[in-house]
């Protein structure tokens, strides 16, 4: 604790950096995963290709992926874009399947009803399928966000900022307090982001609460 108070500035700087490195990829990943997940549901082959590619990306160690990035992107070695892109790739890999599953789980008769009422495909996707997929997507997003927050720390090994610095530096100097601070902050950040997503998911799906209320009332 005394260590934290004495080093508030660098800790807060690391935290700020961490937030940026973690949240940008999550948001980007979500934005990319939605159309990809939709694409995956077009036919089984596309789905197989996309989910297998996603699974494959998952087997690439993150440290290696960070290091590959400049080669692929032509960026500078310490460019934060490397981390952001690498983590975005992980998020997309994680979410494509979730989005695809979520869209598959939309009740067939609801989609059918939408078609029968004369919805055009795009309008149906935005107006019916996507809202109904929100609960599952949010669940997947929570997983992705939490893992990304924890994954950002690895960047510290090769010179990117974030709370991982507290690990590498604390390790170099045998400073347990510093390492523990890092762990606690990562956990706290994950908790805060997770709760925020949970809350956002609730706000986006008022009909879900209606359902549980009813279920509660009838027992």
């Amino acid at each position, binding site marked *: 604790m005394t260590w934290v108070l004495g080093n508030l500035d660098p800790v807060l700087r690391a935290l700020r950096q961490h937030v940026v490195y973690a949240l940008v990829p999550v948001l980007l990943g979500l934005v990319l995963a939605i159309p990809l997940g939709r694409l995956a549901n077009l036919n089984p082959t596309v789905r197989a290709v996309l989910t297998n590619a996603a699974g494959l990306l998952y087997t690439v160690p*993150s440290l290696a992926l960070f290091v590959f990035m400049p080669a692929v992107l032509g960026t500078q070695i310490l460019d934060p874009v490397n981390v952001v892109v690498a983590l975005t790739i992980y998020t997309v890999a*994680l979410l494509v399947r979730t989005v695809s599953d979520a869209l598959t789980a939309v009740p067939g008769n609801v989609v059918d009803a939408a078609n029968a009422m004369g919805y055009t495909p795009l309008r149906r996707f935005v107006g019916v399928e996507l809202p109904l997929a929100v609960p599952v997507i949010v669940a997947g997003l929570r997983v992705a966000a939490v893992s990304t927050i924890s994954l950002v720390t690895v960047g510290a090994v090769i010179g990117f900022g974030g709370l991982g610095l507290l690990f590498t530096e604390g390790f170099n100097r045998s400073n347990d307090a510093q390492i523990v601070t890092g762990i606690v902050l990562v956990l706290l950040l*994950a908790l805060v982001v997770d709760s925020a997503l949970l809350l956002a998911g609730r706000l986006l799906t008022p009909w879900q609460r209606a359902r549980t209320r009813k279920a509660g009332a009838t027992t």
Partner: protein
Amino acid sequence: MNLFGWLFTPENWTMTGGILARLAEHLGYTALTLLVSVVVAVPLGAWIGHTGRGGFLVVGLANGLRALPTLGLLVLLATFLGLSLLGPLITLIVLAVPAVLAGTYAGIRNVDPAVVDAARGMGMRGPEVLWKVELPNALPLIIGGLRSATLQVIATATIAAYVSLGGLGRFIIDGLGQRDFSVMIGGSILVALLAIIADLLLGGLQKLIVSPGLQATGRTAAPRRLRAVPTRPEPVREAA
């Protein structure tokens, strides 16, 4: 520079500290981790799933540990335990247990309640229900959990190299230090290949030991309704 040349140089495979030796170490760490995780998590998950008590624990544990930064845990343990294998092993177990636990728990919970009810109605006692009905039916999800744990562990075992242990991560960390890109990429490719092969093997195992009655049989397999929370824990990787 030939990025893949390193992989195709035979002496890189056979020398002391070469690929074969590292591969063996990597497999060793992974196997040990999975063994311990299965021994701990399967009985625990099965018991919690069967009794229905402590489900919140599984969910909380799975979510909480996901956020725990592997690198942080690793270095923290290394400052206490030094260079022993114990630190990385604990770290990897902490990574693997939630996946196996959640898979087992979800597997047992997902068994059709009507089937469990029928089993009890036929006069099976608690352990019989668990052994003869719940576990065989939960097997696909249990192995699913094991598969995602395996993927994570293989990928993450590379960080053991950060605290001076062996395994394929050596190539990544040493290559990083030496700025030898071909070694790093070669090491990464090996890790990815290993993960894929392990996953295929486990997939084969699943086909072999899961009852054919549970494997999707085309038209008749009714699609299960998806839960709001994915029951099969997604593979999560925290460090490499």
